[in-house]
């Protein structure tokens, strides 16, 4: 049996936990996941103009009884500290985020690299549960357990997709 890809595992766990609303600002590495989600009528999925908006929509949906997740790249996460610190965290809304980690392991763009370095300090400062996912065999466990924890604790959760897991974006040397 062929092994499941990271994006197939993600879709499986989202369905298991009835997360059917997906908002995002696109990223190249996330492309197969976004395509898979759009192809599946289970999901309501759409791109937003900004990541803040994508978080606002899933926060409203959560309060209304519907589960969602926000997909973005590291640069997108860098636009979010204000929203996380004034909406998700103080209101105890378990915002789920999946961030494709750019700016590391083969990046060519110093802008991406610097921005990426701001992500973990922000997550730590806001006491947001964060997991860097590097291995296919651990992925389902991390996604599954952390979602359960997010609902239970009402603390947001951020899944960081390492290039070790996704292959990242490959640039010519």
């Amino acid at each position, binding site marked *: 049996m062929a092994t499941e890809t990271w994006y197939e595992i993600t879709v499986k766990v989202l369905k298991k936990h009835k997360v059917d609303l997906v908002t995002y600002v696109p990223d190249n590495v996330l492309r197969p996941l976004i395509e898979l989600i759009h192809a599946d009528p289970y999901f309501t999925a759409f791109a*937003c103009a*900004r990541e803040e908006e994508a978080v606002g*929509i899933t926060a*409203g949906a959560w*309060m*209304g009884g519907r589960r969602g997740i926000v997909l973005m790249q590291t640069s997108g996460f860098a636009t979010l500290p204000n929203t996380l610190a004034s*909406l998700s965290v103080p*209101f105890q809304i378990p915002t789920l985020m999946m961030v494709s980690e750019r700016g590391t392991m083969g990046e060519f763009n110093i802008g991406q690299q610097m921005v990426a370095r701001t992500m973990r300090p922000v997550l730590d400062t806001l006491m947001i549960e964060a997991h860097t996912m590097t291995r296919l065999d651990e992925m389902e466990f991390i996604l599954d357990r952390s979602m359960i924890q997010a609902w239970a604790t009402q603390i947001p959760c951020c899944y960081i997709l390492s290039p070790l897991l996704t292959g990242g974006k490959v640039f010519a040397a």
Partner: protein
Amino acid sequence: MALNVNQPLKREQAKVMSRFDLISRMVAKIPDEDAVVGGIGWTNFDLWAVKRRPRNFYMLGSMGLAVPIGMGVALAQPDIHVFALEGDGSLLMQLGCMATVAARKQTNLTVVIMDNGAYQITGGQRALSDEGADLVAIARGCGLEQAYWAADEDAFEEMIALAHKEPGPRLIGCRIDKEKPRETTERDPPILKDRFMRALGVKQG
């Protein structure tokens, strides 16, 4: 929908009204099941002052997110109507959200803009809405075709009532004066959220 005289397309054609009065009229008009999201700024405070309405959600920060939060509630609760109340300064920070609402054809969402041409809560500094940025015209440019200024109070009430008659999304621009709000919203986020979720029946016990 036919364009009528009570729904002008230009900001200058709209009467300058009172925020407290407009919100009072809105709250009196809509069913208890409907949800209202109050953005930051003085709009939020007057929403609180008008009535402790259980299905109101009050933001405390995250400037510009009343419309996205309202859209999220609308996506989760397709059987009720959701009103997102936002200040002009706040909306100017997150203009893209109107394109998202329009593209998704969020039929059960009405955006109400309280446009005083200023950032009142931070000291009344002039906002771009007072320098030629017409938020109704911008909404239309985003594809939100049912966007109009409320000519006066009666027109405002008519437009609020439309929410339950014709599918949205819809945006109502209201020109308002610079009057201070009557009260200040309680600043206890988990409780504000909890009340809202229980009122919606999402949380029980």
